[in-house]
């Protein structure tokens, strides 16, 4: 009788060796930022060919590409494909996929913190509490009003008062109330859902921050007056087109858009008027329902986006203050009030917690709509 001897199949040997080598490599990884402890099943060969990240277009997507996606691909070999579906439009698709037990259409969603909070309330996000790079981030990174990290905030941004200098020979607008002047009739732009301006409208209308959200009447009255001046309502690409074509003189828009317009040669500047500007955050989240290995690498992507290297490159390209502490602002934004870095800077701005926005934004949108669709 032949003796039984243990024969290690070559395939198993190769798999085990790769796993050991991968684990050792990760422990001293050039990523230098620590990675998630990998579940036993997520061996090196379980890397997906690609992960899909939802992004905004234009300067936003370019910054994500150069700051996070390309370096991530270089380090992991995983291709990062961008999905440019609008944040509002991808949301029901993800929700439906999760509810129906299907694989969601993306791996990572780059979203506004408010929208991400809504998805978290719905229970469609993966907990990110175990990401090593959460350590040491500014408190801004933590989502407000939620347990753990169903999303992680990645930077702050300001809805500035962007203007055409040619239309303001007297200097930058000192107050948002300048929008009510007849000379700007038809030459003002706001986001078509009032986002970024609703709380400011209250202050510009004579109210205070304490009136938000229970007494917004000063804001609605300000909107009624503004309605007489026939503002244009649109989205980010509309603002760029309108400034480019000389259709508008003043707008409430995100500083990234104004900066990108200026960098592409459009004559636009921005300021923070005396009433202040709304400051908010964007974040990243991973939807439930992904295959185990893809969820792992999606979380790795988010983890890398929180690293010093990625935060410096990504947020510098965007021109936005990161959640990673101690990073210098881009040269053109040093001292810019739309690039808050200190407590004093943030004190000039208006911050509304995500839970308040989540609860009230639909109501504010309906009032905004009622006034401007009249």
């Amino acid at each position, binding site marked *: 009788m032949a003796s039984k001897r243990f024969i290690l199949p070559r395939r198993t040997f190769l798999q085990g060796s790769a796993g050991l080598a991968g684990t050792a490599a990760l422990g001293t990884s050039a990523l230098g930022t620590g990675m998630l402890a990998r579940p036993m099943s997520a061996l090196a060969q379980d890397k997906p060919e690609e992960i899909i990240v939802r992004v905004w277009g234009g300067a936003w997507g370019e910054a994500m590409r150069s700051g996070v996606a390309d370096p991530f691909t270089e380090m992991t070999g995983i291709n990062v494909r961008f999905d440019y579906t609008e944040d*509002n439009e991808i949301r029901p698709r993800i929700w439906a996929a999760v509810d129906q037990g299907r694989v969601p259409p993306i791996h990572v969603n780059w979203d506004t913190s408010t929208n991400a909070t809504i998805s978290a309330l719905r229970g469609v996000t993966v907990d990110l509490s175990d990401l090593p790079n959460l350590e040491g981030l500014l408190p801004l990174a933590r989502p407000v009003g939620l347990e753990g990290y169903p999303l992680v905030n990645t930077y702050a941004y300001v809805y500035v008062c962007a203007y055409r200098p040619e239309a303001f020979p007297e200097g930058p607008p000192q107050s948002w109330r300048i929008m009510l002047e007849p000379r700007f009739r*038809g030459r003002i732009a706001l986001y078509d859902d009032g986002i970024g301006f609703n709380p400011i409208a209250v202050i510009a209308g004579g109210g205070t921050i304490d009136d938000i959200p229970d007494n917004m009447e000063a804001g609605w009255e300000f909107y009624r007056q503004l309605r007489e001046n026939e503002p244009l309502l649109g989205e980010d690409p509309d603002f760029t*087109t309108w400034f480019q074509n000389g259709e508008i003189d003043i707008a409430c828009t995100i500083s990234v858009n104004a900066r990108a317009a200026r960098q592409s040669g459009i004559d636009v500047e921005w300021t923070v008027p005396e009433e202040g500007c709304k400051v908010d955050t964007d974040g990243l989240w991973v939807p439930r329902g992904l295959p185990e290995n893809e969820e792992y690498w999606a979380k790795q992507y988010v983890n890398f986006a929180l690293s010093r290297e990625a935060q410096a490159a990504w947020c510098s390209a965007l021109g936005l203050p990161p959640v990673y502490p101690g990073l210098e602002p881009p040269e053109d934004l040093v001292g810019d009030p739309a690039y808050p870095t200190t407590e004093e800077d943030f004190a000039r701005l208006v911050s509304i917690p995500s839970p308040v926005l989540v609860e009230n934004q*639909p109501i504010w949108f309906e009032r905004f*709509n009622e006034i401007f669709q*009249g």
Partner: protein
Amino acid sequence: MARAGRQSYPLTWRLLDIAERAARLVWPRRWKRQVGYLMLTPAVLLVGLLAIGLGYMAEYSLHELDLSTYRLVEEYSLVNYQTIVDRPVYLRVFWRTLLAAILVTLFALALAFPYAYLMVRTSSARMRKFLLIALFLPFFIGQVVRAYGWLIVLGSEGLINTALGALGLPRLDLIYNYPSVIFGLTQYMLPFAVLMMVPAVAAIGEEVELASEGLGANWMQTFRHVVLPLARPGFIGAGIVVFTLSLTDFAMPEILGGGTSDFIASSIYDSFFQISNFGLGAAIAMVLVGIGSVLAAAMFILVGTGTLGMTGGGRDTGR
């Protein structure tokens, strides 16, 4: 002998014979009476899918949104429909949309008829080809691209205002308002109206007009008392198509309206995507479907189906 005969048939005949034999394998002769049902099956499937979708929308519309979980509550209610009634903005937007659909239909019919008449009556083949190409060319360009094109022409730094400025005239606000939406929609709907109008005009024999003129009627009298009544099915068909398409349009009001001339399709979009209230969005959609269906049905009952009917143009159908 027979085989030699069949081999001398044209190729197309022989191919059709093969096709017929293959069809007989799939659908035997004894099922001949059911061929009509077979032809109807794709349409029934398509309409059935639409009906199922509408059913889902109707079901969604009966559930309110819970803002703490952003899910629709299980209980059925008419809260969403009550919201539409209670909020003046929805009634305003419905009225704006309806008015626009009526105006666009009237303008499109007024412009489409002379175009269709010329295309049918012209004796010049070159002119007919030119009119056909001009009619079909816009179909190669999507609605969004055409809307952006109007921004270039009508914008404050656009072609028209640049020309006005060169002449020392003041600039005009030609865009981002309700009239610009009507204008853009009329331009978009014109080819549809012409296509529906042509069969009706073509069915009017030229000899009928000649007979009218022969009996002493001038051109205007012939046009008013002979041509227009006989072209009525074209007006009905074109009117129904343009009206229903305009009522449900999204892109033109979004791009040309400046955000303050939204149509009801925008309200549906906003409900679904801006505030994630699927129940309210579904309710608005159901109301829109209801209004459109009632108006179309009323037109069919009162004036017939026109060139939409299968009995052909040139005759009053549907009564």
